[in-house]
């Protein structure tokens, strides 16, 4: 029997989305791509979860931060009242 979520089981190998799909480009002007790398709250997903290479993670991080500056992406989605 396979244990669910156990760390002893074989972990699925993560793939860098940008290497799998060469047409995908990191661009701060394109939130439709960047949205895969933030949580619902708008936080940037860490590399161990996103599965990106170090280089691409840096690109994505920079792009998200730029996108936030011009309100293309949220800093956070929790609205203060």
């Amino acid at each position, binding site marked *: 029997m396979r244990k669910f979520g156990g760390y002893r089981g074989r972990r699925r190998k993560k793939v860098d989305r940008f290497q799998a799909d060469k047409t995908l480009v990191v661009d701060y002007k394109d939130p439709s791509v960047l949205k895969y790398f933030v949580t619902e709250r708008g936080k940037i997903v860490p590399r161990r979860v996103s599965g990106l290479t170090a280089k691409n993670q840096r690109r994505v991080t920079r792009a998200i931060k730029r996108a936030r500056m*011009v309100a293309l992406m949220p800093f956070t989605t929790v609205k203060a009242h």
Partner: protein
Amino acid sequence: MIRQKLRKYELIYLVQPEATDEERGKIAERVEQAFEKFENARTLRKEDWGKRKLAYEIRKFNKAFYSYQLFVGPPGLTAELERVLRMLDGCIRYITIKLDEGLDPDSDFSQDVEPVRAQVRAAIVVDDDDDFEEDDDA
């Protein structure tokens, strides 16, 4: 005399959603004037992304007009652009990003006239019907 190398930049600026076409034209004009002050400064491409929803509130606005511009210019041009945009009340946000540097002023930039990639376009929500979900607590 050494010819000054050029840098390639892109600029996005946001104009408040209640601005009239005239006011927006005025802002675009001021940006143009900044270009005229610099030798070899030239716009490669200009795009109007229309009125878009903001990811978060800026100065109590939930929407803004987005303008995009790709250009080359000497160092110092962006400082002037940012100075101009900072002074304009209608402009609520701007960003300039350096894409390339050390470019020869004589080189051909014509391949840069193509618009921003289609997928970027697709992500751009043109939103003109006013306020369907914002709760204006009146």
